[in-house]
C-alpha cells in the first residue's frame, strides 16, 4: 500500500461482501418460494424478499464502487485522499442507513413504511428498485455527493489520468441520473419513461464507465502494461458504450405508450451494445498477453479476465437475445429478463468488485504480492463455483423463460400464469440448486481470506 488513506477502502469492501451474502441468501429464499409458494408465509412475502434482494444489490454495488474508488484514487493521483475522515464517516452513515432501510422493509409493512418516512411530503416510493424511503434516498444523495467531493478534491490536488477522468465522469453521471428517483409524474407512461433514466442509464452507461476505470486500473497493476496503451482501449470502449448505451435506453420504451420510433432506435442501438463488451474481452486478454510483469496476485488477473467474459455473456449476449423489438414483444417481463438481469449484474458489476477486492485486500492486509498460494487456490475454486453457479442459474432461468413464452404468448392455446409456473417447477428446482452453488462459492471466497499465511512466501497458484 503506497498511501495510508487507501485504508479507507477496507470497511467498504468488507461491508459490500457482507451485503452480497445477504443478497444471495434472500435470492435463495425466493428460489424456494418459487417451489413452495407458502414458504415463510406470512412472515416475509415474495414482494418483500424481492425488494430486499434487489435493494441489497444496488447498495452493495455502491459500497463496492466507493471502496474501489478510495483504493485507486490515491494511487492514480499520487497523493493522499483529500479527507479519509469523511470517507469513514460516510461509510458509517451509509451503512447505518442501509441496515435501517432493510430492517424497515422486513419488519414494517410497506404501506406503513411510506407513512412513517414522510412519503406524503414528496411521493417517491413504490417504484421497482427505487423503493427506498425518502430519508434513505436523501441519505444516498448526501453520501454520494460527499464521496464525489472527496474524489474530485483529491484529483484536483494530484495527478490527472484517463482513469480518474473516466471514473469521475461515471460518478457524476451516477449522481445526476439518481435525481430522477425524486420525480414521479402522474402520467404512468412518463413515469416509466423517466424511471429508466435512473435504472438504465446507471447500469448501461455511467456504471460502465466506473467498471471500465476499475478494470483498467487493475490491469495496469497486475500486467505492468504501459498506461498509454491501456488508455486508448479505455477511451474506445467507453465511447462506444456511452453512445450505444444512451440510445439503447430505447429498448425499454417498446410497447409502453412511447412513440413508435423507439422500436427502431432502441433495437438498432442495442444491437451495437454487445460490441464494447466484446472489445473488453479483447482488451483484457491482449493486456494479459502483453504483460510485462508476473504479479504474484494471479487470482486478481483471473477475476479481471472473468469480468470481461461474463459481462460480455450476461450484458452482451443475454441482452441481445431479447433486445430486438419484434422479439421483445414476446419475451418482455418473462424469466428470460430475469436470466439477463442476473448474469449481467453478476458478470459486469459483482465480478469487477471481486476483481478489485482480490487485488486490493491482500495489499491492505500487508501482502503486496497477493495471498499465499494455498489461499489463491481456494479462491480459484470459489471463482469457478460462483461462475458455474451463475451460468447454470442463468441457463435455467432462460429455459424457464422460453417455456413461459411458449405457454403464454405464442399460438392460440395459451394457459394461465399459475399453470405455466407449475410446468416450470422442475426447472426452478435446478435454478435453486445452482443458486446454492453460488452461495457455497461465496462462502469459499470468504474462507480464502482466513487461510493461514505460511512463513514468508507468496507465489500465487499455478495457472
Amino acid at each position, binding site marked *: 500500500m503506497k498511501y495510508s488513506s487507501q485504508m479507507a477502502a477496507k470497511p467498504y469492501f468488507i461491508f459490500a461482501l457482507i451485503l452480497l451474502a445477504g443478497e444471495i441468501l434472500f435470492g435463495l429464499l425466493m428460489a424456494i418460494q418459487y417451489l413452495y409458494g407458502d414458504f415463510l408465509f406470512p412472515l416475509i412475502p415474495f414482494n418483500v424478499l424481492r425488494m430486499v434482494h434487489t435493494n441489497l444489490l444496488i447498495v452493495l454495488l455502491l459500497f463496492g464502487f466507493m471502496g474501489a474508488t478510495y483504493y485507486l484514487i490515491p494511487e492514480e493521483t499520487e497523493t493522499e485522499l483529500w479527507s479519509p475522515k469523511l470517507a469513514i464517516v460516510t461509510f458509517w452513515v451509509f451503512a447505518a442507513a442501509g441496515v435501517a432501510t432493510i430492517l424497515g422493509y422486513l419488519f414494517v409493512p410497506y404501506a406503513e413504511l411510506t407513512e412513517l418516512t414522510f412519503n406524503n411530503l414528496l411521493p417517491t416510493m413504490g417504484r421497482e428498485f427505487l423503493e427506498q424511503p425518502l430519508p434513505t434516498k436523501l441519505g444516498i444523495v448526501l453520501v454520494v455527493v460527499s464521496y464525489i467531493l472527496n474524489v474530485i478534491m483529491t484529483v484536483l490536488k494530484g495527478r490527472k489520468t484517463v482513469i480518474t477522468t473516466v471514473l469521475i465522469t461515471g460518478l457524476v453521471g451516477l449522481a445526476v441520473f439518481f435525481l430522477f428517483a425524486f420525480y414521479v409524474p402522474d402520467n404512468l407512461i412518463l413515469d416509466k419513461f423517466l424511471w429508466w433514466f435512473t435504472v438504465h442509464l446507471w447500469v448501461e452507461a455511467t456504471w460502465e464507465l466506473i467498471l471500465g476505470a476499475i478494470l483498467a486500473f487493475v490491469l495496469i497493476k497486475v500486467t505492468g502494461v504501459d498506461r498509454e496503451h491501456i488508455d486508448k482501449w479505455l477511451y*474506445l470502449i467507453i465511447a462506444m458504450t456511452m453512445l450505444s448505451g444512451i440510445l439503447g435506453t430505447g429498448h425499454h420504451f417498446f410497447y409502453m405508450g412511447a412513440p413508435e420510433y423507439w422500436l*427502431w432506435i432502441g433495437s438498432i*442501438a442495442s444491437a451495437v451494445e454487445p460490441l464494447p463488451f466484446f472489445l473488453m474481452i479483447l482488451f483484457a486478454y491482449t493486456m494479459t498477453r502483453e504483460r510485462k510483469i508476473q504479479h504474484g496476485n494471479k487470482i486478481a488477473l483471473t477475476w479481471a479476465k472473468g469480468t470481461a467474459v461474463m459481462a460480455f455473456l450476461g450484458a452482451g449476449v443475454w441482452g441481445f437475445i431479447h433486445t430486438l423489438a419484434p422479439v421483445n414483444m414476446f419475451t418482455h417481463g418473462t424469466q428470460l429478463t430475469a436470466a439477463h438481469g442476473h448474469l449481467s449484474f453478476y458478470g459486469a458489476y459483482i465480478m469487477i468488485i471481486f476483481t478489485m477486492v482480490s487485488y486490493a485486500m491482500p495489499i491492505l492486509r500487508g501482502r503486496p504480492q497477493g495471498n499465499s498460494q494455498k489461499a489463491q487456490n481456494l479462491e480459484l475454486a470459489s471463482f469457478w463455483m460462483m461462475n458455474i453457479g451463475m451460468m447454470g442459474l442463468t441457463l435455467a432461468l432462460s429455459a424457464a423463460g422460453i417455456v413461459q413464452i411458449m405457454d403464454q404468448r405464442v399460438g392460440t392455446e395459451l394457459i394461465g400464469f399459475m399453470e405455466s409456473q407449475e410446468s416450470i417447477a422442475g426447472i426452478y428446482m435446478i435454478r435453486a440448486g445452482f443458486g446454492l452453488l453460488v452461495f457455497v462459492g461465496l462462502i469459499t471466497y470468504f474462507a480464502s481470506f482466513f487461510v493461514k499465511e505460511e512463513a514468508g512466501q507468496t507465489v500465487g497458484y499455478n495457472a
Partner: protein
Amino acid sequence: MSKPLAVKASYPPGDFAIWIIIYVELLTFALLFAGYAFSRRSDIEMFNASQLLLDQTSGFINTLLLITSSYFVVKAVQSIKNMTAESTKESSLAASRWLLSALVLAGGFLVVKLLDFVHVFGQGITLSTNKFFMFYIILTVFHFMHVLLGSFILFVIYQKTKAQGYTQNDHKGMETGASYWHMVDLLWIVLFPLIYIIR
C-alpha cells in the same frame, strides 16, 4: 524532386482503433439502411409520396460538397506524405490549406443541411409523422452529428498541421482523422440516393 523518405506505407492507414469505430459505425448505419429498405417495401406509395416533399437539389449540393471536401483531405495527406526534409514548412502549409478548404466545405454542408431541416420541420414534420420521415430524421440527424464531429476532428488536425506537427514518417493522427472523414462522406453517398432519389 528529391526522393520521399518513407519506405513503406502502413495498412490500414491511421490508428487501428479508428477502424474498429468505422466498422461499428458502418454496421449501425447498415442496420438503419436495411430497416428503411424493409419498411419501404410494405408501403411504397407512402414512401414515394413523402420523398417528394424533400429538396433533392440541396441534397445534391451537399453530396458535391462532401465529396470535394474528402478530396481536399486526400490532397492534404498527400502533401504530408510527399514531404521532404527540405520542404517541411511548405508541405505543412500546403496541407493546412487543403484542410482549411475541406473545413469550409464541411461548414457549407452543415449550413445547407440546417436549411433543409428548417424546411422539413417547418412543415410540422416530426419523428411520428410517418415511417419515411422517421427514417429520414433519424438517419440525417445522426449523420449531421457525424459531420459535426468530423469537422471538429478536421479542425484539430488543421491546427496541428499548421504548427508543422506532422512529418512524412509521423502522420498517423492525420490519417486517422482523414479515415473518419472519408467514412462520413461514404455514409452520405449511400444515404443520399437511398432517401432522396431511389423510387
